[in-house]
């Protein structure tokens, strides 16, 4: 079965900027992951678990869909 190309985009960089240029380390400390994991999530190299995604959204005080957006890269479909 062919696996559709999907990706999860995020607004973490923008939200960090809006929250007083919060560093990746500060966000990582509040979420309970390493700075490298925040960097990987921000760079689209790692899709976090639902729990970590909710924690990130909670830190920014935003709903989950404002922080993460599901994008289906399959032609003819919209995510």
């Amino acid at each position, binding site marked *: 079965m062919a696996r559709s190309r999907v990706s999860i985009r995020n607004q973490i960089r923008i939200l960090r900027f809006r929250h007083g240029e919060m560093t990746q380390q500060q966000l990582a400390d509040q979420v309970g992951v*390493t700075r*490298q994991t925040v960097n990987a999530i921000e760079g689209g190299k790692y899709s976090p678990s639902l729990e970590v995604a909710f924690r990130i959204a909670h830190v920014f005080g935003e709903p989950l869909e404002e922080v993460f957006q599901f994008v289906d890269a399959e032609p003819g479909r919209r995510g």
Partner: protein
Amino acid sequence: MSFEEKSVWVEFVSYFIGLGGYLIVAGRMLSNGVSALPPYVPVFAVAVVFIVAVNIVGHIVAAATSRSDEVDERDRLIGWRAESGSSWILGFGVIGAITALIFSVGSVWVAHLLLISLFVSEVTKNVLQIVYYRRGI
């Protein structure tokens, strides 16, 4: 680089040089007709001491140069995926060793078949972990 990623590099270097070096020496001994196990034991002991020493020193350096030694969900996922992508190699080695024993192949060959499969399995695991850390998962 996180503590976990540094730890993977330390393991990779220790296994690659320690066990890889042993297998090179053992290969030469085998080609020279050494078919009893006892002459290999001191060489293997040196390799084990080297691996342990590199791991101890490497992890001390890694801990001293890292902010935290905590493991998070990404580290665990990378570990699991690398393990599942490499453990089959050791499995094949064990099956090969059992098959060799059935056909009465010498114990020195069986032991080294197991060591080679352990070496390839561990190095593959470390390489997969490094790739996942660098390229993403």
